[in-house]
């Protein structure tokens, strides 16, 4: 049964180096099982992929945020732009990342750049929409009072509207980040490495799959929590309740 499976996948996996397993729980390993001993010994294999994964995610989200932020600020003044931007970023969002990797290959070649471009394209809709909604949800009376007191449009934006939109913006960042972690596991198709490469290299070996997959999930959870904590720290007023 095992050999048949290995044989069936031998051809497709030929293009990727089969991980060799160093001696650990030899029996467990030979059975493709979940071997804590092997895991403990080989944890260092996952460090580089993990770091690469983190790099891909952070770079993509940062760039995605920068672009979305600029677009959202511009569209805040020229509201007719919002619908078209949502349409375009919507299409980018719909395109499966794995397809986008290959669509970009002829243009940008293999490597992190291709992966990052695709991941950025995916995140634009989420972040843009959340920033715009956040700005729209600012209470109208706060805007009226602000303008009436003599705040210029620019001052109003930076001192009143953006701070009040922060919770929504951070929520969008959280969603974008967790989904990007998931999508980045496919980045190795674009030649960008990451935890996905690890999974793919030995897809039958339970230990490998669990560790690599688990690290991805863990990474998503950690980043999510980190952004949430950051949000709590910079929006103290959201926690102030009537005494």
């Amino acid at each position, binding site marked *: 049964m095992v050999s048949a499976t290995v044989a069936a996948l031998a051809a497709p996996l030929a293009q990727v180096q089969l991980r060799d397993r160093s001696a650990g729980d030899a029996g467990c390993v030979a059975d493709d099982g979940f071997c804590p001993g092997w895991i403990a010994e080989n944890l260092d294999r996952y460090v580089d992929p993990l770091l690469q994964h983190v790099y891909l995610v952070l770079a993509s989200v940062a760039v995605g945020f920068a672009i979305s932020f600029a677009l959202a600020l511009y569209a805040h003044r020229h509201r007719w732009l919002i619908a078209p931007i949502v349409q375009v970023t919507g299409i980018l969002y719909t395109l499966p990342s794995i397809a986008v990797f290959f669509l970009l290959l002829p243009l940008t070649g293999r490597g992190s750049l291709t992966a990052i471009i695709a991941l950025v394209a995916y995140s634009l809709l989420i972040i843009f929409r959340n920033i715009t909604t956040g700005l729209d949800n600012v209470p109208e009376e*706060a805007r009226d*009072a602000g*303008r*009436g007191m*003599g*705040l210029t449009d620019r001052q109003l934006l930076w001192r009143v509207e953006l701070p009040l939109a922060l919770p929504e913006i951070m929520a969008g960042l959280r969603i974008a980040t967790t989904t990007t972690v998931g999508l980045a596991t496919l980045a190795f198709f674009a030649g960008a490495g990451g935890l996905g490469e690890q999974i793919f290299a030995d897809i039958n070996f339970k230990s490998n799959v669990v560790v690599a997959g688990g690290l991805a999930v863990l990474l998503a959870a950690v980043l999510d929590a980190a952004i949430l904590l950051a949000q709590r720290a910079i929006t*103290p007023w959201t926690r102030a309740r009537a005494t």
Partner: protein
Amino acid sequence: MDAATLVFDEATKTYPGQSEPAVDRLSLEVGAGEICVLVGPSGCGKTTAMRMVNRMIDITSGDILLDGASVTERAPAELRRQIGYAIQQIGLFPHLTIAENVATVPKLLRWDRDRIRTRVDELLALVQLDPDETRDRYPAQLSGGQRQRVGVARALAVDPPLMLMDEPFGAIDPINREKLQNEFLRLQHEIRKTIVFVTHDIDEAIKMGDRIAVLRQGGHLAQYAPPAELLMAPAGRFVEDFVGADRALKRLALQRVRDIDLWRAPIAQAGDPVAAVRAQTADCDLPYPLLVDGDRRPLGWLSEAALAGETVTADLRSDAQPVVELDDVLRDALSDLLQHETQYGPVVDARGAVAGVLSIEAIGHALQHSDAVPKAADAVVEG
């Protein structure tokens, strides 16, 4: 800063696509330190007219002059920093502390930190809020009434020569509204700002205004006069209807308890010699002694048993309710008396010490002999 004068000079606002102007050639003058109330039915243009002053709404034709200079001369943002702005929904910034909210305009004008801090504390105290307690709170932690006060404090921050207030007490419950109105009037007595005050409530207008501008649909000025004149000589059917059929009763809102001759009652503290108390009675309008504490605050009306011995005992016939303030308008005071089904009640000053007794008879007496002569005002008559 000194209070400014404000002049509406045929100010008109027509919205594109509308045949009728929202405000049609409004002309009136507000003197320095006066409260001008714009009042009228819904949609009459009073809020529009107010917002034209600080250019939140652009003037289509005509002009508005602040201290003689057109409001269109300066950039809007600059103009608005010179004008206090308080709206119905208050519009405090939820993400800023109370102190930061109040400090908004001073920060825009780049005051230094110490000056701002001092000013904020000063303002919070001015609106009867404890600076230490309130300064670092967030708007969500305050009650509606407290937020309203902060709104006023914020509008006063840079001591602007003019203030615009759009139904500032509208979102508050009636009980607190009365309190806030009284406090605001006391404040105005001290600071004497020029204020344009918009309301739909004629009673509020009469209470608050030095001069009242009654507007009808299209921002047409029906009458511009002091409250007394409005009540006693309404210009035309519209104003008459708007003021209401109970004009006579409304006149009670024009006078305060302090304005009329109060009755005297014997004042006694527990332990006072009864003989001395009885001696007071000769000079008093009311034979029933009032028990007070060490600070002369009223505790209740004494029973006969309290005066039976050598010294006064704290034996009460009834409590002191209703306790009326010197600053209350007669209308509210009369209402309190009637509600408690009593003929009279003690009057206290700002510190809570007894200043006299108000009785229904005294009110009636004052009304009969009131010589409320309307001052010569720019009353525009419309048929």
